[in-house]
């Protein structure tokens, strides 16, 4: 028992040292949570990752689940025949997860798990994965994805990645991490600012703004190969990259012809085709998921507001009317809403607008919130906020009910972008 305890401690510390650069606090207000019991999986504590704990943490973080106490259930059930449903109705659990982790030869391990509907006493899912021990954390995320989808009807995003910029004194890093903040990897370091990272639709590349040339230039980096290519380096500023849904081109903001306007460039670079022609500043383009539209910020009407135009350019339609500062639109994955930054009473907050009705909802109450980015299932919006004068990441559900704060001691964390669903 003691040994097991120390192994657990050891794995926890290993996780702390190697990975945990962002830790997460959640607050929820109102709304029903699904009570779920997640049993320890025999064999898991001998492994580098404790699968049931990662699954539980994933589900709890969404604010949509309440973890039911599993202490005192003996023997630990691992097969359907071991399950005594009365144990769980007595503890008010609606769902139950059991499983086990066993060595499966040539250094690999097999993870088996089952999900039950307690009230119906029926099995909702059963999966088995044979993986190297190093992939157990990723396997736990896949299990959490299955459970989340079965119980909520929406795709889980536990296997997705996020990117963000970490700023320390005189040093900037572009990092890529799992959606829970673990496994943070630096993909770029510079003494000059890095801004506005954007994932390609297939997740293989990230476009961002580099200041390595002493001015903003748009660069595309291939994550697997580590190669970079400059896709926009015109006279003046080059910034605000947004990928077209087919991954072939980028909408960017360039000031090569005077004030900042929106252009399209091929994702491989080359000449820029001008899409807006206004007398003001046009910037922060965002392709709609169907590729038909580009939403953007413009102050052509006197104050910065959000507009949209056909993706090939042309007449723009104003979308925001309330307030004197509405900027930085990002489409929801279903294309029905945009999230953006609004200023109200000197505070900068994240809001969303339902495009069909024009209905605006304020989602956050920070002083200096910025850079909203939707999870690929559209359920959460990750953004940058200020805590004690430092940039930190936070997330809020589309209805504002669930909030997460991802804290880091690493420095200022800013400019997040949530990656796409994994392709496998």
């Amino acid at each position, binding site marked *: 028992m003691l040994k097991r305890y120390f192994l657990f*401690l050891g794995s926890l*510390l290993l996780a*702390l*040292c190697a990975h945990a650069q962002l830790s997460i606090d959640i607050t929820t207000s109102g709304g029903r949570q699904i009570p779920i019991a997640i049993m320890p999986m025999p064999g898991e504590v001998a492994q580098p990752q404790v699968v049931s704990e990662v699954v539980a943490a994933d589900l709890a973080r969404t604010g949509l689940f309440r973890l039911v106490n599993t202490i005192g259930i003996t023997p630990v059930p691992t097969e359907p025949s071991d399950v005594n449903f009365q144990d769980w109705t007595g503890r008010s659990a609606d769902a139950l997860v059991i499983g086990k982790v066993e060595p499966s030869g040539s250094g690999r391990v097999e993870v088996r798990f089952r999900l039950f509907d307690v009230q119906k006493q029926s099995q909702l899912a059963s999966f088995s994965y044979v993986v190297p021990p190093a992939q157990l954390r990723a396997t736990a995320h896949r299990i959490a994805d299955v459970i989340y989808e079965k119980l909520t009807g929406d795709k889980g995003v536990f296997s997705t990645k996020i990117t963000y910029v970490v700023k*320390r*004194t*005189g*040093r900037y890093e572009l990092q890529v991490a799992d959606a829970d903040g673990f496994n943070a990897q630096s993909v770029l370091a510079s*003494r*000059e*600012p890095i*801004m*506005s990272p954007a994932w390609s639709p297939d997740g293989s590349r990230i476009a961002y703004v580099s*200041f*390595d*040339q*002493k*001015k*903003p230039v748009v660069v595309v980096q291939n994550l697997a190969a580590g190669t970079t290519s400059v896709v926009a380096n015109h*006279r*003046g*500023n080059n*910034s*605000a990259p947004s990928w077209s849904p087919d991954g072939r081109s980028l909408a960017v*903001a360039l*000031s090569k012809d*005077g*004030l*900042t306007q929106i252009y399209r460039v091929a994702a491989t670079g080359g000449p820029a085709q001008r899409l807006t022609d206004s007398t003001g*500043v046009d*910037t*922060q383009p965002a392709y709609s998921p169907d590729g038909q539209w580009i939403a953007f*910020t413009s102050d052509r009407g006197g104050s*910065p507001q959000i507009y949209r135009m056909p993706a090939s350019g042309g007449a723009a339609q104003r979308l925001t009317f309330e307030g004197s*500062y509405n*900027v*930085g639109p990002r489409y929801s994955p279903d294309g029905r809403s945009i999230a953006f*930054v609004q*200023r109200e009473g000197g505070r*900068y907050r994240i809001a969303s607008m339902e495009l069909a009705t024009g209905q605006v909802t304020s989602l956050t109450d920070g002083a*200096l919130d*910025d*850079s909203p980015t939707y999870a690929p299932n559209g359920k959460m919006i990750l953004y940058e906020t200020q805590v004690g*004068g430092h940039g930190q990441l936070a997330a809020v559900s589309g209805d504002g009910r669930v909030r997460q704060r991802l804290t880091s*001691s690493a420095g200022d964390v*800013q*400019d997040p972008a949530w990656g796409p669903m994994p392709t496998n």
Partner: protein
Amino acid sequence: MKQLAICLVIAALAAGCASKEKQPDASVTDRSAGTTPPSTSTTPSTSSTTTPNRDTNVSGDPLRDPNNILSKRSVYFDFDSNAVKDEYRNLIQAHARYMNDKRDSHIRIEGNTDERGSREYNLALGQRRAEAVKKVMTVLGVNDNRIETVSYGEEKPKSQGHDEQAWAENRRADIRYQGE
């Protein structure tokens, strides 16, 4: 007691890994401002456009003579504004005159904003401030293609504070001559 011991072990290990994570602090902070007062220790940057050694004789160079208005390079702006205030007209005129005399001189005007507001929109606002200064100079006869305007937005604050004094310092466009 046992719990306490475990906590201490965790604390010690955590401290151990925290210090391991610590990066060797870069001793350099390149604010990339050719306009910073000589008291600030600027350090060589990776780019070729580093500030020449300030110990060289400056008497012959009006751009470096602290008694010459040409050594002043910063134009400050009000919140949310890109209007060039009258108090900076003389400064900009002096630089326009200098450029009209020195036909081979080129400048870059670098716009900046305070930290409030959206990062990318601030980049465009800084650009707008740089363009506003450029416009005054082109009206005074300096050819358009001798002036590049760029923006650092809120990315390179001269003052790191979070109050009005710091913000006022950061709402700024700097004139920088090629080779500086």
